[in-house]
Structure formats: C-alpha cells, structure tokens
C-alpha cells in the first residue's frame, strides 16, 4: 500500500507573480475580510505549498487527475485506469459514493467501489482520488484512497471538513456552486486548522444566470488563489462546463491561467455511463487532449521562464512584447 506523505515544501522556483509585493497587493485588494485566513492565506508561509501523494508532487508538478465519474464495475474502472495512465494522467479519480440530485439516481457502489479503486491502484500505480460525503465514511475512505475529495455540494459541511482534517489524508476541496472565493478559502482553513496541511483547491464552476453551460467555470479563481493563498489550485472543466466540446478549450485556458492541474472525467464507454454521460471523454479524446496539454505547457514554461516579460506585463498598460514572441517573429 502506498503511504502518502503530505508535507509542506517551499517551491524553490518562486515565480514572479508570487513576489512579496504582489502578495501584499492581493491582500490589500480584499482588505480585512481575508484576515481570518491564518493558515490558508498567503502570509502563512513563504512560497507555495506542495502536497505529495504517492510520488506525485501537486503544486510543483502539473497534475492531471482523470477517470470515470462513477465506479460502475471492476472492468470499467480498471480499463479506464489503464487508458488514462497510458495517456499520461498522474492520478485516478472515480466516485464510490455519489451525491446525486435525485435520491433515485445511481448512488454509487460504496465500499465495493472503494475496493475496485484499490485494485485499480495496484494494477496501474496511480494514486486514487475519491469523494467522501458522510462524516462516518471519512476514516474508511482514507483506508482505500490517497486523496479524499470534498464535493461542491459539501464544501460548507463543516463537520465533514473537520473530520477530513483529522483523517491525515490530503483533501481535494471543490468550490461550492454558490460559494464566494472567500467562503471557499475559509473552508480550506477548516481543514488546515485540524492540522492537515494537504489541501488542494479545485474550481468546478458556479451557478450564474447562464443556463447554456452546466456551470460557469470561473477561471479567474486561479490568479485569485495565487494572489491570496499558498495552496495549489486545479480546474475541473468537466463539471465546469458539462459540455464535451468545451472541455478541451477550458482545459487549455486553465493552463494558460496558471492552474496547478486538471481533473477530467474519462469513461471507457461514455454513452453507457451511469452518471454524467454528457461530459465524460473517451480515452481517445483524452489522449488527444493530453497531447495538446503537453504542448501548451511547454509553451507556457517558455513564456514564464522570461522574467522580463512578466515584469513588463505588470508595469505597462499597453500591449507588451515578450522576448519569446519576438524570437518567434
């Protein structure tokens, strides 16, 4: 069994946008309201926190968590796990306990689902991310999974947050669909306050008057987190849009905005999925997306490696010319 060790480490490549000056600017912008973020706020530590799980260092190395919405069977889960690993995913997701809108909808396989996920880890070596919805389940889910996910609907379930904080497992904290940025960070504070330093934030879209998309994916949260907190932030474009064709553009946009990772739903046979049929990628589509992700990240690394460009962007108001763009021209 992989024992995940969670620890704070200080990222040695302190990027420009996290300079002391910009952090203070972020804090000023929100004024006193952020003052209670003793542990989640960016003044709690120097640099960015890194959550290490089964050899994957989230916050330092770009992380792609992929897998089915629900664990439906051993065959479906293991085949999907093998496929996403081949495509380059670093972790496997899969729901065993499903918080569904309707009480009559598929509620997940429960314990059986956890056992299947454990087997998928044995077969692929991918660390497991799975949602926990009941305080009584927290310690048990921690026996099978590497990262516990607190879903959007439970973001402000404070007893669940406290229990998750006590579990000692890293927590992937999704933003509630009606939660403000500040409320979200305060929920992270609940977990941190229990002595659990392993919190990963995940933006998955919020409710707006727009109904075309399932949710409105709020990518502005990425720089907001970077300005106000040291915690890693990842993006879930699957729930964020609920529309298959939008997953790729929003994934790429998230990378451009500086996300630490993505959580993407992939199913071996999406038309026959038991939940979230419309937003699960096939392994082939996921592989194509991973290829674009790699290429964009290479470009972003080149872009961000140029400190002069960053400074220019912050100081000037007009269009800027980066060295890399100049080199291309």
């Amino acid at each position: 069994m992989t024992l995940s060790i969670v620890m704070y480490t200080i990222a040695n490549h302190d990027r420009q946008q996290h300079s002391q000056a910009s952090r203070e600017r972020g804090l000023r912008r929100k004024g006193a309201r952020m003052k209670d973020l003793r542990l989640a706020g960016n003044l709690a530590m120097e640099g960015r926190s890194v959550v290490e799980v089964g050899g994957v260092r989230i916050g330092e190395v770009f992380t792609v968590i992929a897998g089915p919405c629900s664990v439906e069977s051993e065959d479906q889960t293991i085949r999907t796990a093998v496929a996403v690993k081949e495509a380059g995913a670093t972790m496997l997701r899969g729901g065993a306990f499903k918080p569904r809108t309707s009480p009559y909808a598929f509620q997940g396989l429960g314990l059986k689902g956890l056992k299947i996920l454990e087997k998928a880890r044995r077969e692929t070596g991918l660390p497991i991310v799975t949602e926990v919805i009941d305080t009584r389940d927290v310690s048990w889910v921690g026996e099978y999974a590497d990262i516990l996910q607190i879903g959007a609907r439970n973001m402000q379930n404070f007893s669940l947050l406290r229990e998750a904080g006590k579990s000692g497992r890293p927590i992937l904290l999704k933003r509630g669909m009606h939660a403000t940025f500040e409320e979200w960070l305060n929920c992270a504070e609940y977990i941190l306050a229990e002595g659990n330093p392993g919190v990963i934030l995940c933006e998955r879209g919020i409710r707006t008057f727009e109904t075309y998309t399932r949710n409105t994916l709020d990518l502005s949260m990425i720089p907001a987190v970077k300005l106000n907190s040291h915690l890693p932030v990842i993006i879930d474009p699957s729930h964020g849009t609920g529309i298959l064709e939008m997953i790729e553009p929003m994934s790429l946009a998230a990378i451009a905005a500086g996300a630490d990772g993505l959580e993407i739903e992939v199913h071996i046979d999406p038309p026959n999925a038991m939940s979230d049929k419309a937003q699960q990628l096939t392994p082939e589509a996921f592989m194509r997306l991973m290829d674009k992700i790699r290429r964009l990240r290479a470009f972003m690394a080149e872009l961000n490696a140029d400190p002069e460009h960053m400074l220019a962007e912050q100081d000037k108001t007009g269009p800027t010319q980066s060295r890399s763009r100049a080199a291309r021209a």
Partner: protein
Amino acid sequence: MNLEDLRNDIDRIDERLLSLLEERMEKALLSRTFKPDGIRDPEREESVLERARRPLRPLVSPDFSGGLWSRIMEESRSIQAQRLVTIGFQGAHGAWSEVAARAWSPTLATMPCPDFADVFQAVRDGWFDYGIVPVENTLGGLVGQVNSLLVYADLRIVAAIDLPVSHCLLTLPGTDHRDIRQVYSHEQALSQCRGFLSRNRLDPMPYFDTAGAARMIAEERPRAAAALASRFAGELYGLETIKEGVQDAEVNRTRFFVLSKRDAVPSPAFAEAVASQKGLTAPIMKCSVVFNATDKAGGLFGILEIFAKAGINLTRIESVPDKPGDYAIFIDFEGEEDDPKVATAIKASESVARGFRVLGCYGERRVSQ
C-alpha cells in the same frame, strides 16, 4: 420477526451444521486407527441409526433423519478408506497455521487441536502424520510455548514454511462497515493492527484465536462486530472481507515448522506432491539444533566458533528458559546433513555442548505475498 431475520437464523444454523459435520468427519477419520482393515461395525452403525430415527421430534421424521445419517456414515467410511495424510494445527479451522499447512500441501486433512501441546502429543502418539506450529513472527518474535515444547519433543522437523500474514477485517455479509464498533481477534493480531483500529475508532476485543473469532462472528452474529483473521477463515465461515492487509507494518511474516515422528517415512507420492507444490519459493536447506548452555565462560562461544570456522551461515539463534537457571539454545543454519562440512560441525558440537540434538534438516520455503 420478519423474513430477513428468519433467514439470518437459518444461515447461522447452517454455519453450525457445517462446522459440526466437519468435526464429525474428523472424528471418523481418527477412528480409522482402530479399524486398520476398514472393517465395518454393523452393530455400531445400527445403534447410531436407531438414535437418529427416534420418533421424538415432530419436524424431523425417522425417514428423513435415517436417510441423512445413512448418507453421513457412508461419507465417513469413504473418508476412512482414502489414504488421507493428516496434519494437526493449533486453533480453529482458518487459523494461520492451517493456511501454512495448506500452502505446504493442499491435499492434507487439517486437524484442529486446542493447544500447541496437543499438536506435539498427537503427532508423537501417531494420531496425525504431521503437526504444524508457528516458531517465530517478524513482529511478535519468538512463539515461546512452541519453542519450549521443541526442546524435549521427540519429533523431527521435516519442513519450514515462511508465510506472509495479512489480516483481513471480516464481517457478516451485508454489515455496513460504518456500524462496526468491536473487533475480535487474537491479541497478537489486534496489536499488529493497532493503528488501523484506532484510526477507525474500533475497540479491540481479545479472543483466544483469530479463526475462532471469525467463527464466532459467523455463528453468533453479534451486531456491530468484526473479526481479524485470514482470508481463508473469511471464506470458510462465509464472511465478507471489508479490507485486506490492515496490519500496520507492511512486512508481517510467520515461520512455521512441520513436524513428524523421527522414524516416519512419507509415501513417495506424498513427498512428490509436496515437492512440486506451486506458490512457494524453491527450498533453502537448513538444519535446526538445540542444546543447553554450559555454565562456564565461553560455553556458548565454543559452539558458535565451530560453526563460524566451518563457514556455516547461522539464520537463527534463540534461547528459551529451560529448568531453573538453565537455558536451551536453538540454532538454525544453512546446510544439508550429508554435507561433510555440516556433519563435522555437528559432530564437533556434540562433544562440546550439553544435550546437543539435531531437530531436523529440512527445506524451508517461502510463500509469496
């Protein structure tokens, strides 16, 4: 009362029936010793049938019980007629010793004994062909009682099995794992899983035996309870595995000795079956000896020196209290009896050590994880 409760009761009764049938077959198998030629005893059979057919129970008709018992006795005779090789182990069916015995040879008839001493005694008296006992565990260390018995046992070690011990949390099927409050098992197993129990707020409940705890859960069906035992015990008693490998240390292995009478010779077919058994590593040849420490300076050193000079690798040195003020020293080393190097070292030790005895030279095999 509802249908589910009734079915639960029926399941519980069935578990007991199966355990009792197993026990009855074990007794029948042992009685073959008194019937060397497989001679039937019609008088005895008649009296058993008559008792079964007594028309005292309204729902068990004489025809039904008579038919059932005829079938049971037929099965007993068939078991007696098979040339089954028996092996005794301590604990209830599903114990780790039985798991080790089945790893050594799955064709064995495994016979439960209440105590380690019973295993030794039954092998010496010829009731069982073999006995299997745990000697040492990576977490718990020496199994003191077994080693004390080995000092005086007039038995031979014929094999050693190194078995990974991975405890399973077992419950009645359909139990919600979140309702579990008490976990029953042998104290040793409970202590090996302390972290897991405390993380999940489970109360450890000491029980005489790991497999016995599993059987108790299956038979008595206590609410909110689970057992820690082998996966085999779970299968045997129809329990559901909530989680396998809940011990805190990743490496947890127990070493077992297979014992037989000194002069016993296994049938060639059985020896062949054991040698070709899959799932184990190739045997490493070892010898085990025991002697008493001489009460003078350098007494133990003298023996160790013999082995060191012969270039023999010692794999275990253990002492157990013997008579007051006296200690028995066990040494296991790599090598074969007919290796001249080993033979010379043994001969040299015999003249130096008090009560020097070779307990056996045998192949040791590891069961993979």
